C-alpha cells in the first residue's frame, strides 16, 4: 500500500513538472528566444483578426502598418488667417462632443493652441523671431509611428489601427492613465468628471458618443471620418488655405510626401524616437 502511494506521488510530481515546465522548454528550444521576448513579439500584432499574429519580429511596441496617416501643419498659413486655428478647434470640439468645464484641472482637449516654447521644447528659444513670439502653435496627438502610449496601455484600449492611426477604444479603457504618463506630448486627457456635465446635451453631435467618467481620450485623427473616406474635420475646416495637409506618409507619391520633400519641416521632440506623424512649419 505504502509503496504504491509513493510511486503514485512520484509519477504525479513528475507529470506536474513536465506540464508546467515542458512547454516553456520546448518553446525556448524551438525559437531560440527567451520566453519574454517571444511573447512580446506576439503582443505587437494585436490588430490582426482573431488575434492571429501576422508577422514575428523583434520585441517592439507597435507593428509597422502599411499605411501611416499623417499631417503637415503649416503655421505660416494659420498666422496669415487669424481665427482659422480656433475654427479647427471648434469643429473638433463639436463633432467629438468634447466637454468644457472652464477649469484647467478637468480640461479635456484634443486639439489646442500653445506657445512655441511649450510646443517645441527641444528647439532653441533664444532670440526668437517675432512670428514665434507673437503666434501660438496648433497641437494635437502626433499619431506616433512608435507610440509609447500604446506600449504602456495594459488593456490595448489604445492601439495602432491598420492605417497607422493611434486609436482609442473607450469600451476597454480602465482609466489607469498609464498612457498619459507615457505620452511625452500631453496629448491625452482624463475624464475626471462625467463629461455630460460639461456638454449642452441639447446641442451636441448625435452621430458621435460622449465618453464616461474615468476614461482617457485624445485626438483620433478622426478615425471615424477617415474610415469612410472623409478628411479629418480640422483639415476640412481649413478649406483651401492648405494650412493642413493630410495623407499617407508611406505613399511616396502622396501630396503630403511631396510637400515634405519640398519644404523644411520639424517634428515635436524627435529625439525621443516616437516618430511623430505630424510635421510642422513654424
Amino acid at each position, binding site marked *: 500500500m505504502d509503496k504504491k502511494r509513493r510511486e503514485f506521488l512520484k509519477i504525479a510530481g513528475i507529470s506536474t513538472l513536465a506540464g508546467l515546465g515542458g512547454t516553456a522548454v520546448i518553446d525556448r528550444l524551438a525559437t531560440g528566444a527567451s520566453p519574454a521576448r517571444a511573447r512580446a513579439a506576439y503582443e505587437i500584432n494585436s490588430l490582426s483578426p482573431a488575434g492571429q499574429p501576422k508577422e514575428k519580429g523583434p520585441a517592439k511596441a507597435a507593428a509597422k502598418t502599411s499605411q501611416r496617416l499623417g499631417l503637415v501643419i503649416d503655421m505660416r498659413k494659420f498666422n496669415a488667417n487669424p481665427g482659422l486655428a480656433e475654427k479647427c478647434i471648434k469643429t473638433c470640439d463639436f463633432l467629438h462632443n468634447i466637454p468644457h468645464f472652464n477649469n484647467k484641472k478637468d480640461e479635456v482637449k484634443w486639439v489646442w493652441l500653445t506657445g512655441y516654447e511649450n510646443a517645441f521644447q527641444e528647439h532653441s528659444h533664444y532670440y526668437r523671431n517675432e512670428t514665434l513670439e507673437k503666434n501660438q502653435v496648433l497641437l494635437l496627438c502626433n499619431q506616433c509611428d512608435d507610440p509609447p502610449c500604446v506600449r504602456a496601455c495594459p488593456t490595448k484600449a489604445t492601439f495602432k489601427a491598420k492605417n497607422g492611426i493611434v486609436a482609442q477604444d473607450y469600451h476597454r479603457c480602465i482609466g489607469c492613465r498609464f498612457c498619459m504618463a507615457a505620452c511625452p506630448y500631453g496629448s491625452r486627457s482624463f475624464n475626471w468628471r462625467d463629461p455630460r456635465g460639461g456638454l449642452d*446635451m441639447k446641442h451636441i453631435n448625435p452621430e458621435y*458618443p460622449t465618453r464616461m467618467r474615468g476614461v482617457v481620450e485624445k485626438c483620433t485623427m478622426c478615425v471615424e471620418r477617415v474610415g469612410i473616406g472623409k478628411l479629418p474635420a480640422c483639415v476640412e475646416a481649413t478649406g483651401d488655405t492648405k494650412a493642413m495637409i493630410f495623407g499617407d506618409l508611406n505613399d511616396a507619391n502622396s501630396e503630403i510626401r511631396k510637400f515634405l520633400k519640398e519644404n523644411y519641416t520639424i517634428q515635436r521632440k524627435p529625439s525621443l524616437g516616437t516618430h511623430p506623424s505630424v510635421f510642422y512649419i513654424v
Partner: protein
Amino acid sequence: MYDSGKIIPGLIIFVLFVTFPVWYNHGDAGAVPKPEMPKNAKKCVLPVAQMRAEHMQLLLDWRDEVLRQGEWGFITIDGKPFQRSLQNACLKCHTSKKKFCDKCHIYAAVNPYCWDCHFARVKK
C-alpha cells in the same frame, strides 16, 4: 413539536414574504412591453426574432469589426446601406430610446452600460 405556536406562524409569514412578488402581481408577469416600431422603416438589419434575442451580440460584433478591425464602411442589407453603429444605424430608425429600447430594458430590469456613452438624440 416545541414552540409550534411560534414556528408555524413564522413559516407562514416567511412563505408569504418570499412569494410576495407572485401574489402581489396576481400570478401575472405583467403586460408584455410593446416597443414602438419606427414608422419610416420596414426592415431591420436582421429578422425580428433574431434581433430580439441577439441584438446585444450584434452590437458587440459591430463594435469589434468597426473599432478594432477598422471596417468603418457601410454594409448593404436589401439594397439599403447601413453603418455598423448604434447611434448612426439603430437610433436613426428607432428615434426614441424611451419608446423603444427602454421599454424592454426596464421590463427585463437590465441596465446596459451602452448608454453611459452612447445616447439618443435629445429632442430640442
